């Protein structure tokens, strides 16, 4: 199953291309931890990241968003599929071959309290990628680069000698961003990078990320569950459900005109920040529970909970279909 974008390997605008990515976790049981089955956490995901864009992946907890990102970084064993980084197939690169590439893809984590080593000073936290990849010639240059990075994310270079616990959540996230920027990467993966922050701080950090994108021509792969954050921030959005993508499209189009029943339900669940409007609005909750991935539904994974499911939904996996601006994997669309 392909995202309907034709041959991309020659396209210079494409930074990352993921084709039919599958990540299955073994189920180990018994004394000898024998593998008795597989959980298809990510099951055939394809997408492309274009240089300079913000690509957001949304979906509920456990749908495989983070696993997709980790697999893309080769931090998670890939079961099958292909990952191309600037046209280079990195799916089977050894750890030592991956190492030089890692400086070009950096991560910002959700929890700014856990992602910074409490025993390192902020300066050496930010400089860590520089030291790991030996990206400086002398000590003065190294110090200068750290100061520059701190200014870039809105911190004072004088703070380099403090420890992370002396900073607030928002400031820590800025430190994490400065660290991600240090080796001058092409791609930054933000794994729920603002979810742990207060709303006002979220806005600040998001603005910072947008400014940096403009200045440094960064590509963001943004994992989120907060749709209002995603809406204002992303160029393209993909919606994931139970290990598969159900809809991909430009942010505005997808949000104003959702096609897939799951996307519609997801958007319907977003509360309105207005008490009066909110009181007249009924949020239709999706029926049922998320099925277990140990025994995923056949056909379209959403069919047991889908309000408009048709007979074929329960046994035929839907193909991607262009519908308006977005691409959707649903039997309601495509050839009728």
């Amino acid at each position, binding site marked *: 199953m392909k995202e309907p974008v034709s041959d991309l390997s020659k396209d210079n605008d494409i930074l990352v291309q993921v084709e039919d990515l599958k990540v299955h976790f073994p189920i180990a049981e018994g004394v000898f931890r024998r593998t008795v089955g597989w959980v298809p956490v990510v099951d055939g995901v394809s997408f492309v990241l274009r240089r300079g864009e913000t690509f957001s992946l949304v979906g509920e907890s456990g749908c495989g968003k983070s696993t997709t990102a980790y697999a893309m*970084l080769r*931090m998670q064993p890939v079961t099958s599929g292909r990952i191309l980084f600037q046209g280079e197939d990195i799916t089977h690169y050894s750890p030592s071959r*991956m*190492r*030089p*590439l*890692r*400086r070009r893809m*950096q*991560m910002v*984590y959700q*929890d700014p309290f*856990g*992602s*910074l*080593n*409490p*025993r*390192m000073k902020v300066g050496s936290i930010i400089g*860590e*990628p520089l*030291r*790991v*990849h030996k990206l400086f010639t002398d000590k003065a240059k190294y110090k200068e680069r750290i100061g520059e990075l701190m200014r870039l994310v809105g911190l004072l270079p*004088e703070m380099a*000698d*403090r*420890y992370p*616990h*002396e*900073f*607030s959540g928002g400031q820590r996230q800025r430190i*994490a961003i400065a*660290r991600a920027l240090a*080796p001058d990467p092409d791609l930054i993966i933000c794994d729920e990078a603002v979810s742990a922050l207060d709303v006002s701080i979220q806005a600040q950090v998001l603005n910072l990320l947008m400014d940096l994108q403009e200045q440094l021509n960064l590509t963001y792969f943004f994992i989120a569950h907060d749709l209002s954050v995603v809406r204002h921030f992303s160029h393209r959005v993909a919606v994931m459900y139970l290990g598969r993508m159900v809809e991909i499209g430009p942010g505005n189009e997808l949000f104003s005109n959702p096609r897939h029943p799951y996307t519609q339900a997801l958007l319907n669940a977003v509360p309105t920040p207005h008490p009066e409007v909110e009181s007249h609005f009924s949020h239709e909750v999706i029926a049922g529970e998320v099925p277990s991935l140990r025994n995923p539904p056949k056909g379209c994974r959403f069919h047991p909970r889908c309000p408009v499911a048709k007979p074929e939904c329960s046994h035929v996996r839907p193909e991607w279909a262009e519908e308006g601006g977005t691409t959707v994997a649903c039997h309601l669309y495509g050839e009728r």
Partner: protein
Amino acid sequence: MNEVNMGQNPAVPLLVPRKGALYSFIFRLFKEKPLGAVGGVIFLLFLFCGIFADVLAPYGMNETNMLRRLEAPSLAHPMGTDHLGRDVLSRILIGAKLSMIVGFLAAGMATVVSIVLGIASGYFGKRTDMVIQRFVDAWMTFPDLILLIVVVSMIGPGIPQIVVVLALLYGIAGSRIIRGSVVSIRENLHTHAAQSMGARPLHILCYHILPNIMPVVIVLFTIRVGAVILTEAGLSFLGLGVPPPAPTWGSMLSGSGRTYMYLGPWLALAPGLCLTLVVYAINVFGDALRDLLDPRMKGSR
């Protein structure tokens, strides 16, 4: 608790100059952890006595004076004399030296063994972990004392074999504790972040794992120093420790101390109190060190 403190305390310099780091550390030790500081002072005194025992001791350790047997403490003999007329203070001082050697060597080696095994097991995980942990399980089923008695009766008593056996005993058992904290730190996000930026395992071990297990290591080491000194005392008590007439605190306690407890209580009290004091001092000092070396505890009580 520290969040509030930051930026509002101009009296605390943000940039501590490298040269004054030791001084400011000692200052903080006395200001924030007075008990730990007292422990540190006692500990240093113990070290001092151990190192300069031969000079400090007023009499030779085996110098007997049959005319002055079992004398109560006096100016000439501040801790009295034993049943052979030997000066107890001199023997305590020489004993401090032996205890220090045994305690530090064995505890130091045990800590190294624990760190190596704990990291191998906790960081590399999987099969390595499995093999090492089963070995540790098997090792721990042997009672410590039995193993010591077997070794000592096979190659005879002596400081080197006692040190090595104690180091292995405590080291292998303690590797469990190190392994536990390595496993939890390996799963920390900052370790994951270092991996994702392409850091090599050695870098992660040196900058992420080791600094973060330091609190455990310090506590483990200080507890070990006390435990090893006590175990050596126990071995001497059984006659398997450092061979006589070398005076270790344990043998003094068990030999003349026990036999003449009613005639000369100072014979048991002197080594007993010294042992208690030193072990306690090392423990509170270790706790203070652990807290002070944690950057998160800076400025807090």
